[in-house]
């Protein structure tokens, strides 16, 4: 299992979702992806993308002016 960090700050949706999609394409089941964003929409869209692709959102929360999301890769997309 590996852990990766993705800095998607300053990107407007859907760019954070696209970056998450690209990052997860390189990961395997069980890996964790930690994502930092500044577009508040990411709090909604990244989990939505995870749901349609079957990944598990471990945590998604606003932190100060940022949004932090942790995803567990469930299956390869």
């Amino acid at each position, binding site marked *: 299992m590996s852990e990766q960090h993705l800095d998607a700050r*300053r990107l*407007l*949706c*859907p*760019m954070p*979702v*696209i970056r998450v*999609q690209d990052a997860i394409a390189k990961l395997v089941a069980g890996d964790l992806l930690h994502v930092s964003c*500044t*577009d*508040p*929409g990411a709090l*909604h*869209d990244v989990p*939505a*993308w995870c*749901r*349609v*692709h079957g990944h598990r959102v471990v945590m998604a929360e606003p932190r100060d*002016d940022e949004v932090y999301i942790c995803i567990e890769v469930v299956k390869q*997309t």
Partner: protein
Amino acid sequence: MSTQRKAISLISGGLDSMLSTRVIMDQGIHVEGINIFTGFCVEGHTHAIRKKDRQKPKRNNALWVAEQLGIKLHIIEVIEEYKQVLLNPGHGYGQNMNPCLDCKGFMVRKAYEWMQEHGFDFIITGEVVGQRPMSQRRDTMPVIQRESGAGDLLLRPLSALNLPETRPEREGWVQREALYDFSGRTRKPQIELAAKFGFDDYSQPAGGCCFLTDKSYSDKLVDMWAHRSSRDYELDDIMLLKVGRHLRPRPHFKLIVAREEGETRFLEGYRKQFVHLLSTSHSGPLVLVDGELNEDDRLLAAQISARFGQGRDAAEVEMEITDLDGRAQRLMVEPLRADEIPQDWYV
């Protein structure tokens, strides 16, 4: 056992692509969605930059549609490639800077490439004959099939009965009789079909799927190109055209004035890339300078910027101009009066 056929559906986030996808899913086809991000797409989140619009749902409609339908959605970013479509559209522009026919051909081509790479069988879109003046006409819909390379692997389920038979129909992958004959600009049949499927919350963008159909946005884009040495752009350029008031008091510089707090926060992310102004004596918006300022321009930029802050009626306002090297200069200026800002400065 018959082969499970697979279709890739171009999902814009609007009602038509949602319906066409559902129609094909109901025929037992495995459908996945593809959403093409050109950089110009209308996103709830871009509006969400502006605080006053925050009541509106901050959702990505394409993802939302995928979730309602229970399908996967692949979002493809094409910002670089799309430049060729926007800068040199073979079929020209629509009413504004929207190259709809070339754009649709390009999007279907991306879907076609994806289809081939992933072993899918055909492509579906929510297009309806006669619905859009440029890309959805009886004579232009075949152009999209031809120029995208998809040919008769492109099926438009909502309008199929008005169009020649496609391969998925001919081969019996889908039943033609169970497809539709929608045409024209009326939305009634779509709304009825939505009700039949139990869809009661969907997005129906009035203009189109992107900012290029918007006059004010197109004007800003044309202005940007007119004042640069080339008609090129980066993602930051096209994002900044969506935000703030844009004023061009001189040909060699433009000011981007945040309209409220949300926009100021967004523009703050660009402070290192742009000379910028902020009032130090009164509260006011962050202002970015796109272009070069000479000494006279600095005063003018400060006076204009002061106009948009709380000090607009004060005798003097202190403005701070920060250059790209981080050095700041403070100026005491008299804010311009509203009637001193000619209307044609507003881009």
